[in-house]
């Protein structure tokens, strides 16, 4: 038997994950639905006043994206850990970090991307000024994969536990804070008429850094958890 190349392994994983997702189509919508609920709760709790909502809209949208991503984290490796596929990953001839990276990107595309597509609609619910929408979308497009990659480390660290629950949030939120600060901060700067590129560039730099380092760290964490 010949060993698969990196791309072949990625393609096989993609095909498998997409097929699994297709069998349970409803699940794919859940993160976006959760974010919608968070936004509805915020809008109602704040009294629905348009001026006030417009001011906090970017922050609320960021928190909603962050929380829905946090809830989706558990599905990242859990199923594979339970049915033993994760052990096969460790034995596979391709590097574990590569499989982790591919899985994380697929996970991002199936949980965060629908949310990203729904963002213009959600922003409209919160009366976000139209001029800030491109900046918010750019910040989310750079920030949500960053959140997914950081989350992959946390999910990998907790994969060996039967019930991780609140611990995942406790581990992930400190790591998420810088992303939130720069992501929401760039939109806040745009709302004041300042140049938002500084925060966006920092998010981009963070994304490049985590694209390289997070899969390696998560792979090390999986090895610790399953050995």
């Amino acid at each position: 038997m010949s060993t698969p190349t990196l791309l072949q392994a990625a393609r096989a994983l993609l095909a498998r994950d997409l097929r699994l997702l297709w069998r349970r189509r409803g699940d794919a919508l859940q993160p976006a639905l959760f974010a919608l609920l968070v936004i509805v709760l915020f809008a109602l709790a704040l009294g629905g006043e348009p001026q006030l909502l417009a001011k906090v809209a970017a922050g609320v949208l960021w928190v909603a994206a962050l929380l829905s991503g946090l809830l989706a984290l558990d599905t990242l490796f859990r199923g594979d850990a339970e049915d033993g596929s994760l052990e096969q990953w460790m034995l596979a001839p391709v590097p574990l970090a590569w499989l982790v990276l591919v899985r994380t990107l697929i996970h991002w595309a199936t949980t965060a991307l629908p949310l990203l597509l729904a963002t213009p609609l959600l922003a409209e619910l919160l009366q976000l000024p139209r001029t800030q929408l491109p900046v918010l979308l750019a910040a989310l497009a750079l920030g949500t994969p960053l959140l997914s990659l950081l989350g992959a480390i946390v999910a990998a660290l907790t994969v060996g536990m039967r019930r991780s629950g609140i611990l995942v949030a406790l581990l992930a939120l400190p790591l998420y804070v810088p992303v939130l600060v720069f992501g929401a901060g760039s939109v806040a700067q745009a709302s004041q008429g300042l140049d938002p590129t500084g925060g966006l560039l920092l998010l981009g730099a963070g994304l490049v850094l985590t694209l390289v380092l997070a899969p390696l760290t998560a792979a090390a964490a999986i090895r610790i958890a399953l050995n």
Partner: protein
Amino acid sequence: MNPVVRWFHQLGSPPTFDRFAARWAPWAYGSALLVMAYGIWAALFQVPADYQQGDSFRILYIHVPSAWMSMAIYAAIALIWRIKLCEILAMACAPIGAAFTLITLATGSIWGRPMWGTWWDWDPRLTTELILLFLYLGVIGLYGAIDDRRAAARAAGLLAIVGVVLLPVIRYSVVWWNSLHQGQTIRLLGESSIDASMLPPLFAMIIGTKLWFIGSLLARARADNLLREFGKDWVKALAETRR
């Protein structure tokens, strides 16, 4: 073998470490208490009041050493080695570091109320120190949640390494951003920008907190060590002699 190296290797064995910790922890605690008693006394009665802040500035003698310890201990956790005793030591660091972080935040908050007119501000220095507290809690939580102690220590150590990115951000947060928190005024090397008469108690407190950390670390590591070696002959023998 070099005697120092041999001593170091022997210290890695649980029974030797237990004797070592039992012997030295009281000394570290005792000298820490002495040094800190001098530091607190001098800070309260000898040092002149600040010309702007009056007596409020005296909280610095607790705030600054704790803040330094909160970061130094975190760095120590991230330097974990794959030796059983090193894992125990690194994990024993975490609650002490969390306590120092909490003291830093609390004293800063108490000082901030009269000086800034607020208990809390979302200033970069304050926020990053708060995140450091959460990182400590995460490390402690992860260590407690995994049943296999060795895997738990390695997982928590890995998390600590990921969080180590935060340390330079805390250190330079007052330089990079225009923050409410004042910039660095005290330097170990070179000239501090506070008056020389205010420094000696601060050095006493810095040394005192280090000694206290050593005492607390030895005591905690000893307890964890005994717990892990539970059921071994030397632990049973130790328990017999205490009965």
